[in-house]
């Protein structure tokens, strides 16, 4: 993070942590980077939790089974509360999305690992998937009446030239805001870690007073880790619940 400049003074190099690097002996041949490795690990962890958690099928669940059941119930309730009874159909999609994003955010907080949700390519692909599925569901459910979605019933007709473009723009800006929200949260958090970690190096390099003052940025980084744990869970929740709200709009049309 802190790379010594030619003058000897360390400079803040906050963005190099997001650089992709091939891993493994075949890595560079198939462009298998550490982001892909972390995706595989994250998916494997979720699958392992569900597989080993649902194996015992005890009436009184153990810790692992309770964790698996809690996560299942949490996403199931979210989907059914937000979408309605039709939410059961979309539950697997929302569950997958929630845990993929959650694993990306949480695994990124492990030292020396990598946050794959900090790349706009990943979050934009997820958001585009969401918006394409929402549009396909809406068209399949309602056919051409889907397009009445852009003109709320009860609004005066002479306002149509104003309302329809606004509704279309707000519909099309959903994937943009959905992807940038997650990506910006992750990048901002990790840049903040790097900035405060560089402060430690800068202060510690000076004198005894600097070394003592360097306790400050270390303490801030410890607090930031806790805050980022909250943000990691919250952003996965927000991503999943916004998907649910969009699916609700697609199924019910306002």
């Amino acid at each position: 993070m802190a790379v010594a400049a030619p003058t000897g003074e360390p400079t803040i190099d906050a963005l190099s942590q997001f650089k992709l690097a091939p891993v493994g002996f075949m890595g560079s041949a198939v462009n298998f980077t550490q982001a892909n490795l972390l995706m595989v690990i994250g998916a494997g962890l979720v699958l392992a939790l569900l597989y080993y958690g649902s194996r015992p099928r005890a009436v009184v669940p153990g810790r692992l089974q309770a964790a698996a059941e809690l996560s299942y119930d949490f996403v199931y309730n979210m989907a059914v509360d937000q979408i309605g009874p039709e939410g059961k159909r979309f539950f697997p999609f929302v569950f997958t999305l929630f845990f993929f994003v959650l694993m990306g955010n949480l695994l990124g907080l492990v030292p020396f690992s990598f946050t794959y949700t900090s790349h706009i390519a990943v979050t934009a692909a997820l958001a585009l998937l969401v918006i394409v599925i929402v549009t396909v569901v809406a068209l399949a459910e309602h056919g051409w009446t889907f397009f009445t979605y852009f003109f709320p019933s009860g609004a005066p007709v002479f306002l149509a030239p104003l309302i329809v473009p606004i509704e279309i723009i707000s519909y099309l800006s959903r994937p943009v805001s959905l992807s940038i929200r997650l990506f910006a949260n992750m990048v901002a958090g990790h840049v903040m870690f790097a900035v405060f970690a560089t402060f430690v190096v800068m202060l510690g390099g000076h004198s005894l007073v600097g070394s003592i003052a360097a306790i400050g940025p270390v303490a801030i980084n410890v607090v930031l880790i806790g805050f980022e744990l909250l943000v990691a869970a919250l952003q996965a929740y927000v991503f999943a619940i916004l998907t649910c709200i969009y699916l609700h709009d697609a199924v019910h049309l306002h």
Partner: protein
Amino acid sequence: MDVAAATKLGAGIAVIALAGVGIGIGNIFSALVTSIARNPSARDQVFGLGILGFALTEAVALFALLIAFLILFT
């Protein structure tokens, strides 16, 4: 003006948006506290909504912060 000075000033100006976000988050939590104080039994439903509003507002702050980081570090 010197380019290095201009980038630092630009990054500073970019985060003025945080003032609005501060007001917004304050509004959300004041409304949350008021509604829970009026009807404590609604806490479970209202709390989720409040956290959702907080996350959506915080995202605006991060857009501004990200622009500042991009100005400073690229």
